[in-house]
């Protein structure tokens, strides 16, 4: 499983992270270095081993589905790069 230039372009697109054409070769080589090292894991027999996603040992707590917080639009918009009329502003997405 080796990463090439076109895989870098695809991953960059998925991550919404612009990687310039002339950097893609170098990024591929870096990622391959890390992935080669990670491949050590293939030495480990994990047949019949369940993946461990959480170490808390407790189930996620549930609560009533009611509003417990909110009503501070000004706080939420305080750090916005661009705002108008109480909304977030982004480049036009619908023609």
């Amino acid at each position, binding site marked *: 499983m080796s990463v090439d230039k076109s895989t870098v372009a695809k991953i*960059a697109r998925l991550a919404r992270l612009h990687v310039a054409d002339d950097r893609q070769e170098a990024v591929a080589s870096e*990622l391959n270095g890390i992935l080669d*090292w990670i491949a050590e894991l293939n030495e480990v027999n994990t047949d019949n081993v369940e993946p*461990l996603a959480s170490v808390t040992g*407790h189930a996620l707590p549930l609560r009533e589905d009611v509003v417990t917080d909110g009503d501070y639009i000004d706080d939420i918009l*305080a750090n916005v790069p661009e705002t108008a009329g109480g909304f977030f502003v982004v480049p036009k997405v619908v023609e």
Partner: protein
Amino acid sequence: MTDYLSLSATEARAALDSKKISSVELTTAYLGAIEETAGLNNYVAVTADKALEMAAASDARIGAGEGGLIEGLPVGVKDLFCTKGVASTACSNILNGFTPPYESTVTANLWREGGVMLGKLNCDEFAMGSANETSAYGPAINPHQAADGVNLVPGGSSGGSASAIAARSALLATGTDTGGSIRQPAAFCGVVGMKPTYGRCSRWGIVAFASSLDQAGPFTRTVADNALMMEAMASYDAKDSTSAQTPLQDLSGAVGKGVKGLKIGVPSEYVMDGMDSDVVRLWEQGQEWLKAAGAELVEISLPHTKYALPAYYIIAPAEASSNLARYDGVRYGQRVEADTLDEMYGATRAAGFGDEVQRRIMIGTYVLSAGYYDAYYLKAQRVRRLIRDDFDAAFGKVDAILTPATPSAAFAVGRKVDDPVTNYLNDVFTVTANLAGIPGMAVPAGVNQDGLPLGLQVLGRPFDEATLYSVGQVLEDAADFSAVPALRAGGAS
């Protein structure tokens, strides 16, 4: 004249209570220390006015006989913690100027217990690094220096926190630890650092790196100070769904209880090729100290240790790539304008994130992408279970585990490293605790041939921080660590 900076937190707390000193005097001394050691670049923002205000309020509360656990004690806060009205950037350009309208639970707990906020401490960008060199504010410097006067890294990611404690420009400091980011810098700077059990401290309001691994913890000069600060930081918090309801033990009471009758595990797998011989010597010395204090040493095996780092470098980047998706230039942080929404996202993130953060986002996105998820991400989670099982088996036989904290002492700022994996190996002894969710503490225990600090690590059962404080105090007493940093406030003498 009182030498404010040489008081430990427990000493300062007693002096405040008996009115020998005031918090305003103590805080003023620390603000002076920050100025004096500004060259260490361990603070990214100093909140002097706020500090003096909080100190005056503490003095009033002490006067009224109402002081909290850390009333009047000056605290530095890693820039990963959101602090209301004070810029919080995770030392990343993408959050440049971000000023949270809310306070993290951990810092809120500290202020409720009387802590005085000195400012925000330097760290690796989004806590991704082991040398504090990925910070958008430039590297923090270790107050300890090599004989040749070359500046050394304080470790990372909580490098500013460890540096400030060692330099005496903070009495208490917060850190976070995802793969060793408290314990490794504590060892490099010769201070005490604790990563508690996963769930012990609330993650609410801390900038997320890898949510299943991140834990906050205290940096202090002594083990007793550390227990005190841990008691002030920890809480159950309904705002963090992974927060634990298990009651906190009496940690200050555990300090000084000794290790008589305790079984201490020594894992044969914690020996690495090319490990500093001083580290091996100190580890053996630590075993002797515990034995002399009445502990029984037990050889144990943690067979999957060598697979912890590769598993971590799948799980942590995967979680990071997901967590960092929120930095999109829409709701907060920096934005680079572009014609379309997608171009705006791509340009904003490329400009705002540094190289190491981008590298980890790319790795994380790759291992989670269609066709690779099973081979990488699920494989790593299976190995994570085997690592946890290793510890479960070991803790059936022993009460705590003693290991080196790091494979070497601090290295020079700016050392050339061609392969990112070389940097990742710094966390080889610490990362297992994050994957297993268990507590780990680094205690300064000696110096290498160049006089640089080395630490020992104590690992414990989930929610048994108390035993670590008992073991840590025995190590502290036996080691009598006295290496004085060349660059600390109040002179080196």
